[in-house]
């Protein structure tokens, strides 16, 4: 096949995507970096000056900052644990011989397609509402006092909602991986007298390793940016109890009109995401190259 010509053509065909993404990545990031060193408030836009490291110091010394970092990590970690463990169990369950497997799969995967504001509002109002929610009704039926979820356990409530949204995703991917496991291997192990736990540990789990890594990678990307679920339920409160880093930056930027401060927060968010990404890419790279 022609070489130089096709290669030039290939470059030409790739150019729009690469250029768009390059601009999309560099321009806003450069602006964020620039603003993070400026005193710039939208309420007083005429008065912009160099701020040095003030914005970073301001963000760093804000007690809400550390809380929001902790909340971010708890949110991501909590949802990952619930969805991966729950996903493995669910996938094992759905892999059993059951009647109506197709419909069961559809029911289980459905929450993934529900847009975040709907998911959050349905849980907030219909399920977790302390007065009229389903959980409150059940609690009263058993004579217990209904839990005021968003006042007493704001972060946990959001973890539950987000986990509900992502559990189907983990389940579907793990189930797909599980179904590609060689049936004969399973049978051979069974014949050799390997119990369920042994089979799971030495056969199933290693087979699922790649899928689990992928689930963790993809979910982390999305979970670091959880926003709408917080906006429509707790609005970050009470206090900063359910504010993650994304929400704190939004608050600083669009409610505090503090461009400089929010940009410093943005730079910190990028660094955090990159630290996570490096770890993940390394782990995933190892697993994917196999």
């Amino acid at each position, binding site marked *: 096949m022609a070489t130089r010509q096709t*290669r030039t053509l*290939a*470059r030409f*065909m*790739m150019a*729009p*995507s*690469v250029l*768009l*993404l390059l601009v*999309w990545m560099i321009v*806003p*990031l450069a*602006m*964020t970096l620039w603003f993070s060193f400026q005193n710039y408030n939208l309420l007083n836009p005429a008065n912009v000056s160099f701020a040095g490291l003030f914005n970073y110091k301001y963000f760093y010394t804000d007690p809400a900052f550390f809380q929001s970092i902790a909340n971010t990590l708890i949110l991501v970690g909590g949802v990952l644990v619930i969805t991966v463990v729950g996903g493995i169990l*669910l996938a094992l*369950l759905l892999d*059993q*011989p059951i009647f*109506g497997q197709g419909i*069961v799969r559809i*029911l*289980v995967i*459905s929450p993934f*397609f*529900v*847009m975040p504001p*709907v998911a959050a*509002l*349905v849980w907030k109002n*219909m*399920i977790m509402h302390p007065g*009229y929610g*389903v959980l409150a*009704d*059940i609690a009263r039926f058993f004579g217990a006092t209904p839990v005021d979820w968003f006042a007493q356990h704001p972060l946990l409530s959001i973890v539950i909602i987000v986990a509900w949204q992502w559990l189907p*995703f983990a389940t579907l*991917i793990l189930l*797909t991986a599980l179904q*590609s496991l060689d049936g004969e291997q399973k*049978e051979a192990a069974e014949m050799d007298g390997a119990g369920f736990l042994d089979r799971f540990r030495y056969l199933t789990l290693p087979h699922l390793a*790649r899928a689990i890594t*992928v689930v963790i990678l993809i979910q982390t*990307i999305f979970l670091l*940016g959880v*926003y*709408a679920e917080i*906006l*429509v*339920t707790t609005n970050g409160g009470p206090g900063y109890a359910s504010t993650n880093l994304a929400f704190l*930056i939004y608050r600083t*930027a*669009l409610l505090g009109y503090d*461009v400089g401060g*929010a940009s410093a927060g*943005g*730079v910190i*968010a*990028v660094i955090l*995401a990159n630290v996570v990404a490096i770890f993940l890419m390394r782990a995933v790279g190892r697993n994917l190259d196999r």
Partner: protein
Amino acid sequence: MARRVSTQSRIAWTIAAWAVALLIFFPILYTVLTSFKTEAEAIAGISLIPSGTFENYVEVQSQRDYFKPFMNSVVISVGSTLLALLVAIPAAWSMAFSPTRRTKDILMWMLSTKMMPAVAVLVPIYLIFRDGGLLDTRIGLTVMLTLINLPIVVWMLYTYFREIPGEILEAARMDGASLVSEILYVLTPMAVPGIASTMLLNIILAWNESFWTIRLTTTNAAPLTAFIASFSSPQGLFWAKLSAASTLAIAPILIMGWFSQRQLVRGLTFGAVK
């Protein structure tokens, strides 16, 4: 597989699986049921039998003009998907059929742009949109979602195109097929399924995107995500109406999703799990 399964254990597994599945599906089911209740019924305790009123659906349209955000959602998600495909198809095509040493790196780099937290660029994007008159416009949001989903679209298409065997092209050329007929009769039929599933998944992702769609719109271009989020303001309890609006907002995407389970696994894992 030659595994014999006793009917008893099969029934036991079936009951367990259905119980868990219904539990997971319950919030959606309950939303749909509530949408057919009156507002008084909606807060009167658990009841799985609604009175069957369509009033909520009528009112969501007549009071809140449901059709407008719905159309915004359609235009923005379909528009951004088509735009992304337009840019991504040539790129994925060339990466799949004439890969270079750097192709893998470029793909990884594209994926890494997804790692950039949206909120980190909220301020500059907001200012650019404000100064460019793009706030609360469909065109602004469409471009935004195109950029966000472009890496996924390129990746997905790449994994599909890579599976088209190159030999088949050579064979067609040997048989004397012209370039045009090669593209029309050999490549297109093989590429269409991959493009279609990419499109489907991307429409789902764009439809549900809930950061930029909420922050960059107010009324004119607000899609369903922003519309539903506006129900969170605590002005009384309108759960039945909220349920009706929610049901309408998720129904089309839910049905599309049911049909695209396989493609979803493939697309969202970048071909790593099939």
